[in-house]
């Protein structure tokens, strides 16, 4: 996107939004920048402030404080110009129900001043790419969530936006539709389109995003590449162990000893039914190093390990680490 080479495609600085009659800030001092051509993910639970942040950047939410720019345009001072640079794929279909999907694309382009000769040709090309050409003259009423999502992405591309915003692009889609959307997003990224997406799906953020910002309660808690975020968990792992256990007292004693092993941060009891001890060890180091000492310790209590599983950290663990709770 020639206009912004070298500069950031999106800049957010100390962004604050408090909705009227609300006691707390929906967005509470968030700052980040997105480079041209980057696929940026905002990850967080519902109500974290992701959608509000995107709302500000797409001129639909007026911020209480701070600064927000898209393609070098201040979205608060010059909303009309900013709208020419952005495209939005919302969470729920907002397609024009009075128009066929082809006309949805064509009129969208007309709103954005794409010349008449190019818009029809472009609409057909995008409809083909998105596997919608056969249904081009159908009105969107009868479309499934996945199909509507595809139409909305195609529509968003009609005016060649500098930045494409996607709000929870695959929420509620079946696995096939989800993979289709992922593929399209990867293609767009290869073509140099800057993408900003919100998601509460860890795997989605990890699979697609160049960088991920983790949000909760209106604050940006961490911002890094998925690998970088997981590096904070490096070496961290979990070790699940199961062993037949003679009685509850022995089990309690063993758990106490396991918790005292060096490298074990926490022990969680897993429900394995009567006569069986199941534990998950949260480790500060690599799991294999703990296998021998744990086995020896259990053997001292007359138990032999019958099942064992090593877990590696995911973005979910990063999130739990940052917020102290799970995403869903």
């Amino acid at each position, binding site marked *: 996107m020639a206009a912004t080479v070298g500069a950031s495609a999106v800049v957010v600085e100390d962004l604050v939004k408090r909705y009227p009659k609300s006691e707390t800030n929906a967005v509470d001092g968030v700052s980040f920048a997105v480079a041209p051509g980057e696929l940026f993910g905002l990850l967080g639970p519902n109500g974290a402030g992701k959608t509000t942040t995107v709302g500000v950047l797409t001129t639909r939410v007026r911020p209480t404080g701070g600064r927000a720019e898209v393609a070098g345009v201040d979205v608060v001072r010059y909303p009309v110009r900013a*709208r020419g640079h952005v495209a939005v794929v919302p969470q729920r279909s*907002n397609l024009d129900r009075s*128009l066929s999907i082809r006309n949805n694309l064509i009129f969208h382009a007309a709103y954005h001043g794409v010349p008449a000769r190019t818009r029809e040709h472009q609409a057909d090309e995008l409809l083909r790419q998105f596997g919608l050409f056969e249904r081009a003259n159908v009105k969107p009423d009868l479309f499934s969530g996945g199909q509507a999502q595809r139409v909305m992405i195609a529509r968003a591309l009609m005016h060649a936006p500098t930045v494409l915003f996607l709000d929870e692009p695959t929420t509620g889609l079946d696995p096939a539709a989800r993979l289709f959307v992922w593929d399209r997003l990867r293609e767009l990224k290869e073509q140099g389109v800057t993408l900003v997406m919100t998601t509460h799906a860890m795997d989605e953020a990890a699979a697609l995003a160049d960088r991920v910002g983790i949000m909760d309660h209106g604050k940006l808690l961490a911002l890094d590449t998925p690998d970088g975020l997981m590096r904070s968990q490096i070496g961290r792992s979990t070790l699940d162990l199961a062993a037949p256990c003679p009685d509850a007292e022995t089990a309690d004693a063993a758990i106490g000893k396991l918790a005292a092993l060096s490298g074990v941060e926490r022990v969680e009891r897993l429900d394995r039914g009567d006569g069986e001890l199941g534990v998950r060890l949260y480790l500060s180091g690599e799991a294999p190093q703990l296998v021998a000492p744990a086995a020896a310790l259990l053997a001292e209590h007359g138990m032999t390990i019958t099942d064992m599983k090593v877990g590696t950290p995911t973005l979910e663990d990063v999130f739990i680490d940052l917020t102290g709770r799970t995403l869903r």
Partner: protein
Amino acid sequence: MTALAPRVEDGAGSARRAFLAILRRDLYVTWGELPVFLAQVILQPLFLLFVFGKVLGSLGYTQRGYADLLFPGLVALTAVITSMQTLAFPLVVEFGWTKEIEDRLLAPLPTGWVAAEKVIFAALRSMIASLLMLPIGFLVLGSIPWRWAGLPLFAVMVVLGALLGAGLGLVIGTLVQPNRINVAFSLIFTPLLFTGCSQYPWPSLERLRWFQVVTAINPMTYVSEGMRGALVPAVPHISPWICVVVLLASLGVLMTIGVRGFYRRAVN
């Protein structure tokens, strides 16, 4: 994918183009549903004219000349109601459920222009509907009270009536919560319909003083009265200049409230 060159334009040019494209979208959709549009526009005044003008007159329940008095009132009613319905119903639905309006709100034009487009389009539809009343009246009644000398005032009243309805529609469409739309319409629509002096001339209400006061509050009254001034000046009516002044003032108030409401719904 096509190599798409980024188009970065500023303000006025892009806004004008977007505005016209949105207007074209509305005209395109209306053209596609022309029979529906005509039925929606024609049916109500057609029946009112037929029952009140023709049936009651033929049966001798109304005096001779009542149809002439009713006709300008029904043109006024059509002007106000058509644009109000054209604007309010879709607006409530678009903001409340389908969110269809978002694509237009994200087009490169000021938010207020999207509201202005709605008003202009609704007024256009309503003006067409009002003009259609002339042949319909002629067909149903056999003759309509038409005088060429009244044409300028007739035109002014059609335009003001259409804009008044659009203003009302904008206020209702942005202030009413989607889940209240049914209640709101019965509470607003019915009184508006019957206190707007379309079925009786305002000065004749002197015998029913309290009702005369009530009808004076309804701005539609001034459209009906102005229309009578244009078409049946022999019937006592409120003087046209008062009608124009009151209507312009009402328009100012309604548009201010309506556009504010629109901004509140469009930008959080």
